């Protein structure tokens, strides 16, 4: 019965001059998301609003599920568009009221931007309200706390009738704030961090540091599955770096208790080089203060020092349990906790320095040709796009 979806966006509307840029980005993201449902969906942006035209044969549950994964969308409503004719409006309103069961109380809320229409807002409210009361025995009006609010908008292009308001994920349209390089591991935290960055409109260039034969192909497969889950919100590029040459050099030349610190410094350097190559402006990590040795403030300072790009840490102040709850909500949790046998413990000292200083890290890197190693890692990148 619905032939349109009305899209609402909150913050997007507040961005002044950028408004049309943001709206177009959101409309584009909605268009891309709906592509998976087949043909016949049309996204238009008349007068600063976004509408989706639904094809006659559509599964609204699928449309709803898709739209709930488009960031920037605050809420949306399935809408019936009718001719500018009171008979048609009354019929559509009655049908809308009955959809999902007749409520006990209701209210009609009409808005009229087409001033030449035969009735004004108050008159529409009264007309439609009495039509609904006549047709539904026992139904009552409640203007303060109605169980169902039947909205009627009278505009130049037609009349719009709707009553459902379905929440969207909020945030900003992915892409509008730029690109970021997400350091993605197979763990719980980094996919959540990536999701949160996406929510703020950042398009993800994810990077995974593969270390064959020390990490198993199954670990990589798991990361690919996580990237695919994140890509349900917006396309994700996954860059797989062959990190073995770097790791090998570290194991030969870096004191054991500083390996993790120096390893992270190299990961940051490679991530920044990748950011430059991809036109990304920030790094994103799943670090949370104090969770492990490399996530103390001292470690963060020492590791962060090698890059000048901002490092976004969306989960930095969340507890593990809070991160896990988010991971469940996003749908990455079950994949993240899958066990796989992996030898990266080989690189982890039993007693890593929890407060590594800059001078210690620099000294540990003395015998390494940092630039050459970063270049070597940059040459061994395999990229896949998930969308």
């Amino acid at each position, binding site marked *: 019965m619905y032939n349109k979806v009305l899209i609402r966006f909150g913050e997007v509307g507040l961005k002044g001059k950028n408004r049309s840029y943001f709206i177009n980005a959101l409309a584009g993201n909605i268009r891309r998301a709906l592509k998976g449902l087949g043909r016949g969906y049309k996204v238009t942006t008349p007068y600063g609003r976004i509408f989706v035209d639904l094809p006659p044969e559509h599964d609204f549950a699928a449309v709803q599920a898709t739209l709930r994964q488009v960031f920037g969308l605050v809420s949306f409503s399935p809408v019936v568009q009718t001719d500018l004719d009171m008979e048609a409006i009354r019929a559509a309103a009655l049908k809308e009221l009955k959809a999902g069961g007749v409520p006990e109380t209701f209210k009609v809320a009409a808005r009229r931007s087409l001033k030449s229409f035969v009735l004004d807002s108050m008159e529409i409210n009264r007309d439609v309200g009495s039509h609904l009361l006549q047709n539904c025995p026992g139904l009552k009006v409640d203007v303060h706390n109605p169980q169902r609010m039947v909205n009627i908008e009278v505009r130049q292009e037609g009349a719009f009738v709707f009553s459902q308001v379905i929440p969207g994920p909020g945030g900003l349209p992915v892409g509008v704030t730029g690109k970021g390089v997400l350091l993605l591991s197979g763990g719980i935290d980094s996919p959540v961090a990536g999701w949160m960055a996406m929510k703020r409109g950042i398009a993800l260039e994810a990077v995974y540091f593969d270390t*064959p*034969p*020390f*990490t*198993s*192909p199954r670990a990589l497969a798991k990361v690919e599955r996580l990237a695919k889950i994140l890509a349900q919100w917006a396309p994700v590029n996954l860059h797989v770096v062959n990190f073995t040459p770097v790791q*090998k050099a570290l*194991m*030969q030349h870096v004191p*054991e208790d500083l390996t993790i610190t120096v390893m992270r410094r190299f990961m940051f350097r490679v991530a920044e080089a990748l950011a430059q190559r991809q036109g990304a402006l920030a790094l994103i990590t799943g670090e949370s203060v104090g969770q492990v040795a490399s996530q103390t403030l001292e470690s963060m300072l020492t590791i962060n020092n090698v890059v000048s790009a901002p490092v976004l840490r969306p989960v930095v102040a969340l507890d593990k349990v809070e991160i896990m709850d988010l991971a469940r909500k996003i749908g990455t949790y079950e994949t993240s906790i899958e066990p796989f*046998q*992996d*030898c990266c*413990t*080989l690189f982890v*000292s*039993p007693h890593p320095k929890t407060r590594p200083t800059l001078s210690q890290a620099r000294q540990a890197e003395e015998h390494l040709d940092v630039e050459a190693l970063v270049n070597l890692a940059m040459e061994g990148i395999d990229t896949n796009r998930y969308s």
Partner: protein
Amino acid sequence: MRQVYLDNAATTPLHPQVKQAIQGAMAEYANPSSLHSLGAGVEKLLSQARAEVAGLLKVNSANLVFTSGGTEANNMAIKGALARSGRKGRLVTSSIEHPSVMEVYRRLESEGWDVVRIPVDDGGQVQLEALEQALAQPTALVSIMAVNNETGVIQPLEKAMELIRARQPRALVHVDAVQAPGKVEFRLADLGVDLASVSAHKIHGPKGIGALYLRNRDLINPVLDGGGQEGGLRSGTENVLGIIGFGEAARLAKDGFAQNLAHVAGLRSRFVDGMEGLSGQIVSPEDGVPHILAVSFPGFRGEVLLQALSAHNVFVSTGAACSGKKGNLSHVAEALGLDDESRLGLIRFSFSSMNTEEEVVYALTKMEEVLAELAFVRGRRSR
């Protein structure tokens, strides 16, 4: 790119003739339990296949029940035997059993049974004195494997049987024989064991089919009830293609027994010769089955070696998982008394009659390359 598959203790490739037999049988669709002539035709194929499996094991067809594989056969043997009323006393098993035996006993233990696990000696064989001591108490059931899957050690079943019959004549004896057929000359019927499990995919047959040998069909209660197939001991419409494949694999294993054994022994000895000069320590004893060769590379991680070999298309497996947690280390390696470093560096090469000498030489070359490539991690603390 060539592939050298040396993980035959995990599973074996389908023999081309087995594949052919299965393909030939794919046109048969009737239910062997159906009374019409189509059903009878399939039933006949199944009884021929059953006879082939019985021939390999040197037992009577009537004493075989087809199962979905070794795991089901082991579960059925142990749980089915104890479900039969009147079984009292302790349960005795070894410390090196396959998980499909070990975990069943762990569950039974949690349900209140007294489970005794017999340790193994330096050579990986169950300690007969310890077994004898355990048998001083009334015993309901004993499970000892025929051939260990991680080391290839052949267990002293004859001597164990003598002890059991002398001390606890009423105890039932179950043998997990999954790694034995085609690899050791043994006669289940002569040994006098009560229950034995086998699996088709370890002898170039298909996955999803195995069998339980029962000395006497009254020894167990069925675990699955239903249509009464397999003489009521294992209900469920027969896995017709699996059984036909199993039959053909058994026929090939029986007919080619001596030749295959000699071929595999030759491969192993070629491999062992080639290992000289590499840093590996051979863990498997010389008198084990030739198919399985466990080698430890102390200072390396088995999983890392495995992945490095895999990158060269040489496929092996590890005795130990590499997560660095002790709990994931092989219980068999632990039972053998290997130190942590040796256990972490354990890998298993397992051969089959379908491997060639050329493949073994290739694998050795790659092993040498991989050890050289990874030499830099040697001696680095692993945890």
